[in-house]
């Protein structure tokens, strides 16, 4: 198995499918402690990314197209999310993918790079959003994901790292339920934010699960 631009593209397309499938769930989570647009925001954003990927694929089939890099796919995703998602999650996911793109500018990437990619994504999110773990944000899914990927990379390959990250993000998202939010819109609710899962943490879990699913396919 190689983690190449095709994988990256499958990852993004699967994420788009996932947010469409789970739009209502994300919206409902955000309705409970935010403003109910998270599902809508991500659907709008990832649909736009898919449209761009389609367009780029059409071009790439022309003779003489330059070889495609994981970083190219992630950079396209980043800029498209930034300009179409809006809300808090747009700049956060946008910055995450932008930073991730910077460390994945190769045709194929290894286990070490995958871990660096996840670390960079998290760094981008915290650089922009200034949230720390425990504030009931997507950081609470990304942080355990990065930790788990680092640990798994010591003993396994890229796939193991991604699988560990996805599982940890899922658990991390669930673990936001009892937290009281101190960042983002949910913080306005104070204690009333406890008892609800953070929508951005849940969408992070979907995103990383899609990265794993994308491993299993050879063509999108």
């Amino acid at each position, binding site marked *: 198995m190689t983690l190449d631009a095709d994988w990256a593209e499958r990852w993004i397309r699967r994420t788009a499918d996932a947010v469409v499938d789970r739009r209502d769930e994300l919206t409902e989570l955000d309705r409970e402690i935010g403003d109910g*647009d998270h599902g809508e925001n991500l659907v709008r954003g990832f649909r736009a990314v898919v449209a761009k990927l389609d367009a780029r694929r059409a071009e790439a089939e022309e003779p003489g197209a330059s070889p495609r890099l994981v970083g190219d796919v992630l950079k396209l995703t980043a800029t498209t999310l930034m300009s179409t998602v*809006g809300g*808090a*999650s747009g*700049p956060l996911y946008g910055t995450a993918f932008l930073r991730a793109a910077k460390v994945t500018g190769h045709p194929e990437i290894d286990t070490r790079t995958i871990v660096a990619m996840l670390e960079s994504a998290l760094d981008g999110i915290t650089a*922009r959003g200034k949230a720390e773990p425990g504030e009931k944000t997507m950081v609470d899914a990304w942080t355990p994901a990065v930790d788990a990927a680092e640990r798994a990379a010591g003993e396994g390959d890229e796939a193991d790292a991604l699988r560990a990250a996805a599982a940890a993000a899922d658990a991390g998202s669930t673990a936001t339920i009892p937290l009281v939010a101190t*960042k983002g819109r949910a913080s306005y609710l104070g204690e009333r934010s406890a008892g609800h899962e953070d929508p951005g943490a849940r969408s992070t879990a979907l995103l990383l699960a899609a990265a794993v699913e994308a491993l299993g396919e050879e063509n999108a």
Partner: protein
Amino acid sequence: MKKLLNDPENAVADSLAGFALAHADLVQVHHDPTYVTRVGGATTGKVGLVSGGGSGHEPLHCGFVGDGMLDAAVPGAVFTSPTPDGIVPALHAADGGAGVLAIVKNYTGDVLNFDLAVEIAEAEGARISTVVVNDDVAVENSTHTAGRRGVAGTLCVEKIAGAAAMQGRGLEDVTRIARRVVENVRSMGVAVTACTVPHVGKPSFDLPPDELEIGIGIHGEPGRRRVPVAPADEVAQMLLDPVADDLELSRGERVLLFVNGMGGTPSSELYVVYGRARRLLEQRGVTVARSLVGSYVTSLEMQGASVTALRLDDELEALWDAPVHTAALRW
């Protein structure tokens, strides 16, 4: 959900299209990306003013584009902050060579998207300063929150900074004045009914028929506490007291009192709230020197109101009084 809309997905675009036609003498609406500019574009040598945020708060911000207020506004999807691809061209369009002031309501989404846009526009050569409005005393301004939200007080910042820019003041000065408004303006709101985001199709929160939600924001988000339905005089006091306390208004001071409707409340009710809030201020020895009553910073069709007080001094008062000619505010 019953609304005078076509496809809910196109609510913002359809509304802007009508807005552009109705106010072609004042504004120009740009599409893909969406932003609104003053007809005639930037004024050479004048500091440009840009604001923006989610739609659903009309007339904020697009209704305040015009002479003496904003040079450009960027409407996002309903209750969703706009994206940098709309904000960046708006910043450039407002730039008359004297720099641009971005007025941002304190929501994580708005702040992050404006931050990104400002980074990009600056990299492209613009000189920009940003003022973040955070007048909502319903939210504690502490490490336990994303900070107070920007609500109706935003109108005061846009009006007064807009007047300062019209006087030909420099970017630093206009920014200083905008900051001074932010420091001296506070608001608090109540919801009588919730509102329904068009593409969501059901109310943003469930409010029983015998309860009011105190401390709501302007995004259909629930507030901090619920109280049983109470007479307007009591509700006005629940809104005015925290505002006046937070501002530490003291005897002999003078204020602008702004009672804002949330979109679905008739002005007759707003005047009842205004009358009580004014008497409460007067009981504190505070003079209401200027007044504004109307639905200017709204949450779609939500019924409810907010009370805003702005501490005035001669400078702010004169700037408030300066002429303004926009679709929604004019004198």
